[in-house]
């Protein structure tokens, strides 16, 4: 299978030249095959979110290359990379426009990567499609197409963002701790939905999580980050047999440190 994502020698330092200088990503290289569903775990400040933001182009890398589906996107601005990516954020407020209706949000996502002109923003044909997709979420949103998204719960908003991220099939789906702000039951539901959507469309996906169990139970490959680089990379059969205890032990071995993430240990 082809490589969907290729990262070569990625480097990022924040606040360079000040006393707050922080090396976030250090000479990181990584390759995803098409259809890989990779979970990413790591301690606080390990560089998980920075890695995702560098792929998405939220800020530029100091050095290194990001090649997506054979195309070097390292120099592309965020909104251009967005045409190839689907993103769901940790903050449920971030992925949707609160002051716009559910259908208007979906219509924005439907036009990702296409030109936007002076045609009417939503066609009636789309509406039927949206209703059908919303029905599949099973959250009762299909009857509320014109409801402002600001009136939805965090879980509903995340589910909607997930739908938006995958309405146009992305080359890579980036999930940045997208269930962290939700209550456990809703988090489980959104996670289940993520699994379902990724499997259904055969997406290549990257999911950052702080929950070790989730990282082990989902996806076909697990990456553990430490100090801006990859400390562990476990795939295939080895990942299927992995346990939380083993993961912690292997992390200590690989990094020479205790696994330091209160949130991860508690959950």
């Amino acid at each position, binding site marked *: 299978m082809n490589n969907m994502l290729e990262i070569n020698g990625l480097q990022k330092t924040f606040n360079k030249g000040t006393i707050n200088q922080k090396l976030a990503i250090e000479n990181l290289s990584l390759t995803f095959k098409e259809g890989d569903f990779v979970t990413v775990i790591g301690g606080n400040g390990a560089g998980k979110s920075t890695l995702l933001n560098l792929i*998405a182009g939220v800020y530029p890398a100091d050095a290194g290359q990001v090649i997506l589906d054979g195309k070097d996107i390292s120099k592309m*601005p*965020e*909104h*251009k990379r*967005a*045409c190839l*990516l689907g*993103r769901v*954020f940790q903050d449920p*407020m*971030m*992925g*949707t*426009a*609160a*002051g*716009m209706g559910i259908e*208007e*949000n979906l*219509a*924005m*996502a439907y*036009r*990702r*990567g296409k030109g*936007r*002109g*002076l*045609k*009417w*923003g939503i066609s009636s044909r789309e509406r039927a499609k949206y209703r059908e997709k919303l029905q599949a979420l099973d959250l009762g949103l299909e009857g509320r197409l014109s409801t*402002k998204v600001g009136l939805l719960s965090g879980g509903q908003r995340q589910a909607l963002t997930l739908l*938006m*991220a995958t309405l146009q099939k992305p080359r890579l789906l980036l999930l940045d701790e997208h269930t962290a702000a939700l209550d456990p039951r809703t988090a489980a539901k959104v996670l289940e939905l993520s699994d379902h959507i990724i499997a259904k469309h055969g997406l290549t996906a990257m999911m950052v999580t702080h929950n070790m169990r989730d990282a082990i139970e989902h996806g076909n490959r697990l990456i553990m980050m430490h100090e801006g680089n990859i400390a562990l990379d476990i795939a295939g059969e080895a990942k299927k047999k992995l346990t939380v205890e083993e993961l912690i032990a292997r992390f200590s071995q690989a990094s020479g440190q205790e696994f330091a993430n209160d949130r991860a240990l508690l959950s």
Partner: protein
Amino acid sequence: MQFILSFLAACPGAISQGILWGILGIGVFLTYKVLDYADMTVDGSLCTGGAVSAVLITAGMDPLLTLIFATLAGMAAGAVTGLLHTKLHIPAILSGILTQLALYSVNMRIMGRANTALLGQETIITLLNVPHAILIGGVFAVAIIAVLYWFFGTEVGCAIRATGNNDHMARAQGVNTDNMKLFGLVISNGLVGLAGALLSQYQGFADVQMGRGAIVIGLASVIIGEVVVGKQANFSLRMTSIILGAVIYYIIIALVLQAGLNTNDLKLFSAATVALALALPTLKKTIAGK
């Protein structure tokens, strides 16, 4: 009785003035509410529109045709603010203030002096015929609202609204948010330039000071309109409410002037009214919290 009569006599003038300032109010609404951008350019671009129109009329151009040039001049002013903000990363408010200041010199250059009179010139509206001015102003307002309602329903219009609503989301959906901000500022200041042209024709002169405090009147119109129809009203109703808000604002002004307020105190009164209106949500919370 005398008071009521003279107030009533002042009302038609307040209505016609309100409609014209309401067009500026819609421009302010587009930046302040739709784009979430406090654009100070309007204090300058209002006069730019007025100056362009007045100078072209005295040069013999058809007054209706001058509106196009006034609108274009306003758009150019909006583009400058937009470029300062998006390309040079100057904070939003400061970009507007810089353009506004620069426009003072530009407006002086356009007119060659501090004001241009339109005495004896034919104009499309005039305060000498208020009912006619209300009619024409109303036609302009309705046309502008119709066009904007259509535009903000299109794909590009939706992208501008999404940018103002949540620029993270807009970028993640492939929208060039810098361009959308620029676009919004251009449209907004185009409207403001048009309002300035109509105002100068209505009052019979353009003056370099005519835009001073325009942003406050625009905000007052937006806020009063919001009180009348609520925040959840649809887009065309919200824009209509701004025209209504501006009319109400000028009727209140007529009222306080009749009641004996010194005209020099008007700006203090306007600023205090808008400050109070903006503070209302906070004040409500504080009172409810006790």
